[in-house]
């Protein structure tokens, strides 16, 4: 069985990813008076996905701030606040809108510490989404985490489970650097066990083995972890034991963790929902190909979103993303 079963082991509660994020935000708002949230419809609406329900009631509109529809503006404001003593969380409703904040994120936030010779810090969290199959078409379905991971000075987290979503969000808020945390919009209702711990902070840069195995490693990010686990179940039916490794953060990247698993199994598939060309999967695959070169029995394979804009029609959209079946076929091809 995977480690993601929804029964609660002792010392845990089963909650949704949405609740997990809500708890993380509430706990950090409670713990640190410099933490605040700014974004579109974050207050009374609690975001369109209802992730922030109840926060404005507890913390007030001064700390859960409904903003105009001005993504660059709120990101710039958050940076200025972060440089002068605050710890803002900026809510960018859809990951596609990262395109709008690129100057503030890439030219400003990512570089202020380096450009200033270490005099400034920018403890800023950008919370946004990734993921297709919500029938939202080309401008609300992209997975643009590779764009952000390409920029030195930014950190990038991709939680797959409620526990990871909570622990990584708390770590992001406490980090002294700009951190962009992507939640798959299809996973807000996904349930999982979360430790009963109001101080659940996961270190950034530590991969997690979501399922142990011997014959093939499937490295999977964000919701692709579930796709990988589905593939692992199918492989098990063929007598193939698959290990599923979730890097959890792209920056910093737990290179050793990925290489270790590859050295053990000798075969690797990397699954990431970004477009495959020039995507995060390329960096992960290259890391493994170099680090586990002598132990690999086959070339590292990759699965990502098809290199097309995400189409609207379900029959078309479903063609664009990796599935348990497609990852199973890819992995099986390596082991055969």
């Amino acid at each position, binding site marked *: 069985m995977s480690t993601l079963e929804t029964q609660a082991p002792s010392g845990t509660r089963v909650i949704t990813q949405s609740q997990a994020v809500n708890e993380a935000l509430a706990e950090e708002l409670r713990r640190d008076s410099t933490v605040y949230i700014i974004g579109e419809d974050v207050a009374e609406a609690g975001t369109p996905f209802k992730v922030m329900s109840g926060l404005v009631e507890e913390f007030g509109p001064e700390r859960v701030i409904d903003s105009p529809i001005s993504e660059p503006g709120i990101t710039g404001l958050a940076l200025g606040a972060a440089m002068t003593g605050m710890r803002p969380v900026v809510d960018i409703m859809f990951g596609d809108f990262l395109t709008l904040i690129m100057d503030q994120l890439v030219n400003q936030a990512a570089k202020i510490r380096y450009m*200033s010779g270490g005099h400034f810090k920018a403890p800023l969290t950008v919370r946004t989404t990734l993921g297709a199959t919500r029938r939202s078409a080309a401008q609300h379905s992209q997975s643009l985490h590779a764009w952000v991971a390409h920029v030195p000075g930014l950190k990038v987290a991709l939680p797959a489970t409620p526990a990871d979503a909570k622990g990584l969000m708390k770590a992001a808020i406490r980090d002294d650097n700009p951190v962009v945390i992507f939640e798959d919009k299809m996973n807000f209702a996904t349930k999982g066990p979360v430790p009963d711990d109001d101080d659940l902070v996961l270190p950034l840069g530590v991969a997690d083995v979501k399922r142990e195995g011997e014959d093939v490693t499937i490295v999977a990010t964000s919701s692709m972890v579930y796709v990988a686990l589905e593939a692992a179940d199918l492989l098990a039916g063929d007598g193939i034991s698959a290990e599923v490794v979730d890097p959890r953060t792209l920056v910093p990247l737990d290179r050793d963790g990925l290489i270790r698993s590859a050295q053990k199994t000798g075969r690797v598939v990397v699954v990431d929902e970004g477009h495959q060309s020039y995507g995060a999967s390329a960096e992960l695959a290259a890391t493994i190909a170099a680090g586990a070169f002598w132990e690999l029995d086959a070339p590292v394979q990759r699965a990502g979103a098809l290199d097309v804009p995400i189409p609207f029609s379900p029959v078309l959209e479903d063609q664009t993303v990796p599935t348990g079946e497609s990852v199973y076929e890819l992995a099986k091809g390596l082991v055969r």
Partner: protein
Amino acid sequence: MATTASTPLGVDNELALRMYRQMVRIRAFEEAANELYRGAKMPGLTHLYIGQEAVAVGACEALRRDDFITSTHRGHGHCLAKGADVNRMFAELLGKGAGYCRGKGGSMHIADFENGNLGANAIVGGSAGIATGAAQSAKMRGTDQVVVCFFGEGALGQGLVYEVMNMAALWKLPVVYLCENNQYNEYTHYSETTAGEVVARAAGFGIPGEEVDGQDVLAVNQCVRRAVARGREGGGPTFVVANTYRFHGHHVGDVDRAYYRTKDEEEDWKTNRDPITRLGARLVDAALASPEQLESVANEAREEIAAGVRFALDAPFPAASEVTDDVYA
């Protein structure tokens, strides 16, 4: 320090003299920066503030040390006016380890945290968000700090400026948007790029807008004092347009400018609207300083600047191994 009608120039005599000295220091600094470029001693290039000194000095003399500014690619004047050290600035211009940013920022990224300078910025309009966020932070932290956001009229083409003005007005943030209209977006007169009235932009947001002669340091100072007082008292943002002129080119290498402006135009501004000459004449007329005293202020500034240049030239470059330092906190 306070504005007073009983003094001949309408401001405290000490303040008037200090503003003269600060403008002279900036002028001398920029002339030396130009020489460093022409002598091939400075990597890259730089954008000179000569001609606009009254704006930075008038504005920064309306601020406390713990107030913030954000600056632009043409930022040396703002930086000095807010209290930066000449040695560390020249060292940064030359990419030396003793520079404000340990040589990693250069001319366009000098920041001076100790004096509240949140940094020059090489993206036109790029610091408007930072300035407004610092103002929001001041309000949230319960301080009465005020922020002056310097930007040129070229930034009027950037959407970010209007986004943050909207939020500053909504939330009554203590920020002064100080548009330095030096007439040229790089090599294009602003009239070719800017529709409508510049100062009128503020009215759309319900922000008080004021236009001021950017060659008159006393007028700039009084105008910004009013704006700062409004911000400090919770009255929200102000939009100030200071009309000024860049005596040199867009950058130090922009020396053949006939295709975008005439020599006559440049001569007119230099001869008739030099902010230093103007204040100097008023100080002498009001018997606050003799021509000899003004000359000695200029000499002192030149000596300070020359010492700064020597310091920077003699300072070591950073160790190559520092290239990976400070990517992350």
